[in-house]
Structure formats: structure tokens, C-alpha cells
């Protein structure tokens, strides 16, 4: 009798129906709304969100290609994301290496500090940066946006790199030095090749994070309009609704690429760093 009870708790095939239904429901709840966005990018109705759709057209996709203001926003968002990512990669990697290599007082504080910009509500970070910038009478510009973004992007690179560093055996660094390589050479030939995929994964997540960001951006931008800011104006004062949908679809689809790539890169690096048996 004991055996059959054990067998039941081990069984993978007999999930209760209620559980399956609620799981399916949750997944649908999470993913259907985006399908709605895709649907409405094809509608001919430009003033309401009526369902069923009065007609299907691809003209909005063409429309999106020609809007200069839109592409200016895209270009600005890209430049911001690039700047923020470069800073995040440098600072995140330095911090990860420092925390991993040394046993110093306050290691946890560093981890906490790195996470804080993303852990506190966006509005806090936004208002804080805004008050600092205005206190120092600095004009709001491209650079203020980049500084804001870089600050909360550091954590994505930091987390990825430190996770990889923890999985790398410390004896690899000792072996490299033992064979004649100094600290810089060891970093170049042994450490960097082992963390490069984690670094890139973090960088890509950072890029996506910055590109999509709206809350802190509204507080740190001057008259600049990043793509999310453009979408926000459409949200509150909608005019050509399908156009916004087209942009939305494009943004999600294009940003999915670095995210999926980052996911792949973090899987790949695992499992090759433990020599010996």
C-alpha cells in the first residue's frame, strides 16, 4: 500500500484537471494580449478599437516606414541604449570581478547597491535623478537619459557576469599565473574568454531594458522623444491607432531578438568550466 502512494506522488502524467486548466488560463492571460495588438495593427479603423474589425489592411505597416518623427525616436532610443549598455558592461564587469575575487567587508552591500536602482520603484529613481539634475542646474539632454539608464542597467550585466565567474574554477587563474602569465595576460587569455558570453548576454538584456524603458526616461529627458515616449503620447492621446499598434508589434518583435540571444548565451556557457573528474 505504501508503494502505490509513493508511485502516485512520483507520477508525472496525472496532473489534476483543475491545475491544467488554471495553468493554461494563466499562460493565455499572459500571451493573448499581444496577439490582440498584432490583430489591431491590421485594422482599417483608425479611430476606435471596435471588435470585430471592420476591415484588414497592411497599409499601416507602410505608413510606419515613412514617418520621420517615428524613426527619429527609434534612432534616439538606439543611441541611448548603446551608450547605457557600454557603461553598464564596463561598470558591471568591474564590480562583478571585484566581488568575486576578494573577500572584503561589505560584499553584500555592493550587490545590494547594484540592485537598488532596479529594485526601487521607477518613479523613485526618476524623481531622484530629476531633483539631482535640477539641483545642479544641468540641462536635461541625451546624456541625462543615458546616465539614468546606465544606472539601472548595471545590474543585468553584473548578475550575468558574477554568475558565470562563480561557476568558473579558481584554479584556472592560478594555473595561468603558474605558467607565466601576469594578471593582465591571465585576464585576456583565460578570464575574458570564459565570461564573454555572459557579458554579451548581460549587454543584450541591458540594451533591451534601456530601449523599452519609459518611467525613468520621462523624468530625465528634456524635449527628447525616445520611442517609448512616442508610444506614451499615443497612449493618452490616441490618433492613428493602428499605427501605434504597428510600432508596438515591431518593437516587441525586434527586441525579442536580443532577449532570446541572451537566453541562449547564458545556457551555452554552462558546463564547460569544470575540468578534472
Amino acid at each position, binding site marked *: 500500500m505504501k508503494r502505490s502512494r509513493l508511485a502516485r506522488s512520483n507520477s508525472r502524467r496525472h496532473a489534476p484537471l483543475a491545475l491544467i486548466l488554471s495553468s493554461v488560463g494563466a499562460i493565455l492571460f499572459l500571451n493573448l494580449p499581444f496577439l490582440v495588438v498584432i490583430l489591431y495593427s491590421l485594422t482599417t479603423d483608425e479611430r476606435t478599437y471596435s471588435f470585430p474589425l471592420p476591415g484588414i489592411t497592411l497599409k499601416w505597416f507602410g505608413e510606419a516606414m515613412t514617418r520621420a518623427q517615428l524613426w527619429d525616436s527609434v534612432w534616439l532610443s538606439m543611441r541611448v541604449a548603446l551608450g547605457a549598455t557600454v557603461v553598464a558592461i564596463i561598470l558591471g564587469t568591474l564590480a562583478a570581478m571585484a566581488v568575486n575575487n576578494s573577500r572584503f567587508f561589505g560584499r553584500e552591500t555592493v550587490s545590494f547597491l547594484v540592485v537598488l536602482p532596479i529594485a526601487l520603484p521607477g518613479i523613485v529613481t526618476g524623481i531622484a535623478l530629476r531633483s539631482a539634475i535640477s539641483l545642479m542646474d544641468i540641462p536635461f539632454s541625451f546624456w541625462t537619459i543615458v546616465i539614468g539608464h546606465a544606472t539601472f542597467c548595471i545590474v543585468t550585466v553584473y548578475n550575468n557576469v558574477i554568475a558565470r565567474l562563480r561557476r568558473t574554477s579558481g584554479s584556472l587563474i592560478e*594555473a595561468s599565473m603558474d605558467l607565466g602569465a601576469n594578471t593582465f595576460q591571465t585576464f585576456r*587569455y583565460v578570464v575574458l574568454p570564459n565570461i564573454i558570453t555572459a557579458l554579451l548576454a548581460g549587454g543584450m538584456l541591458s540594451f533591451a531594458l534601456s530601449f523599452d524603458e519609459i518611467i525613468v526616461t520621462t523624468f530625465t529627458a528634456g524635449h527628447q522623444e525616445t520611442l517609448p515616449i512616442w508610444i506614451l503620447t499615443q497612449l493618452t492621446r490616441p490618433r492613428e491607432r493602428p499605427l501605434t499598434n504597428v510600432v508596438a508589434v515591431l518593437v516587441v518583435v525586434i527586441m525579442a531578438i536580443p532577449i532570446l540571444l541572451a537566453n541562449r548565451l547564458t545556457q551555452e556557457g554552462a558546463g*564547460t568550466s569544470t575540468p578534472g573528474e
Partner: protein
Amino acid sequence: MPSSSTPAIRFTNVSRHFGEVKAVDEISLDILDGEFFTLLGPSGSGKTTCLRMLAGFDQPTTGSILLHGRDVTGLPPYERDVNTVFQDYALFPHMSVGENVAYGLMIRQVPKAEREKRVEEVLELVRLPGFARRRPSQLSGGQRQRVALARALINNPRVLLLDEPLGALDFKLRQQMQIELKAIQKRVGITFVFVTHDQEEALTMSDRIAVFDHGQIEQVGTPAELYEHPATAFVAGFVGVSNLVNGPVAQAITGSPTMFSIRPEKIHLTDPSAPMPEDSYCVEGHVREVIYLGMYTRYLVELKGGGELTVMEQNLHTTSMDVLAAQGRTVRLTWRHDHVRLIPEKAR
């Protein structure tokens, strides 16, 4: 064993403290050029810490380390003419076998053609010819170990350090590698400093052994010296198996309460009525337990006056039946006077 006037390695009053803990406590040691020297001891005895200080991964708290007369205390690993074979091999996973082995040469900017030639030579030496293109993940444990060895040897270090390199290998492979390592050392002629906790391994391979316990060296000597003339109770018990007798039991046998050590194979098991051999100690007891081990038998004998001795006898003429019948029998144990080793009280 070649030896020159300058020792290859000299530790002078080296200590390594970790806060309150004295991992290494005032060690002084000379290792001669070209010898196969083993640091032997249980876990935590300080032998690995000494090796790491030699390599440069750890710095002594006090004392100095000289390599061929040059003070290397404080020098980073890459400025010492010493190479290490790591316990977990530490092969670079993102490089091929050939690139791993050539790493030291690449750092010193040896031209590519010469690198490749020397890689092939050293791979031949460790009996892995043609393995240069493979990747570490494709190799077995024994093969990885040999690559680690090749990677270290290719740089022609004057001293090679080996940190329990055979620990992860299975029994037969270990024995084979012990012989191979010894042969390579003889061929290449450089000083090997080998760390292990396995006393049999140490006895097999070493020219000389330093026995470590709690951060100090108990004794330094050749395998024979350590086995036949152990200086302390620890060495007697750690290197090989031994009987240690002291107090009133010792008094009854030798006439003095000083601790002595007698190896189990040096004791003879005889009938109480047999004639007494000359120049021997004897004591009577009964066989408490017989353990048949194929090649030899171990007897646990409870002595008449108290105490217990372990006796080991080869089964040259006896079968298991004969041997097991000895259980419970009253016997006399005898051994020669000159096989007894007195262990003086440790002066602390």
C-alpha cells in the same frame, strides 16, 4: 640522485597563519636538486599550504623561501621558475589540448612553429601522441592529468610541483601513473615536489619524504628510514601500520615504560611451548580475532598482562582453514630486539 651544494628549495622558519590558526608552523626544510621529494600527511597538516607557498599562490606570514638560492618570498607565481600540476588539472576549457600545453610558451612569445614542435615532443613524453587537436572535455581523467603534466613540463621548470595529482584516478590507473611519473622524473631529471596523503604512494615514488602533522614536520627521511626508524609515534602510526606500546605493558615486555614501536610483520606467532629464540622479546596472549586477507593474515592478539598487538603473517604455507583455526588459541609472540624502535617523548 644528483645533488649540488645549493639546495633546489630551502624553507627557513616558514609559517602561515590564518588568524588564530597556524596552518604551517615554523617549517625549515631543504629539498635537493633532482630529487623526487614528497610532502606526506593527513588533511589539514599543512603540506598543501607549503606547496602553494612554493608556487606563489600563498605568501608566508613569516620566514623565507629560497629557490636555487634566490629569495622568492613575495614574488608572484609568474615570476618563479616553478610549474604546478593541479589536483583538478585546471585545463582551460576554451582551448584545445595543444593550446593548453603551449600556453606557457605562448605567453613567452615563442614562435608558433617551435611551439608546435615542442608540444608534440612533450605529448610523446606523457604518452599522448597526436592529441593536440582534441579538447579537454573529450578526455578521460587519466588523459587530462597527463595533459596537465605536459603543460607544466614543456616550460622546462627547474622544479615541478604536484598537488595530489592522482587522487581522482581509480586504483589500477593510479598505480600505473605512479610508475610513469617516477619514470618521467628520472628521464627529465628535474626536482619533483609531490603532495599526497597516501603513505603507500609516498613510499612507492619518493627519494625522500617529509611527514607533516598539524603544520609541523615530524620527520624527513628516505622511505626506508621512515619505515624502519620512525622518530615519533605519529610517523610510526602514519607511515605503514605499527604497534605502539607504552606504559605498564611496555614495562612488562622490555623492562622500561618508554614507548616503542614494533611492525606487525616483524612479530612471530608461535606455540607457547616452542623453544625461545635468541635476542628476542616474548609475550604470551590469546588470539582474539583472525582476519584472512588472501596473501597474508592479520591476527589481533590480546596479551596476558593487558594490551593488544596486531600481527601480520604471510600465508606462505598455510591455508585459510589452518589460519582460522587459530582463533581463541593461546600463543606466544616473539620479535627480535633490534626490530624494536624506541619512540622518545616529544619535546614541546
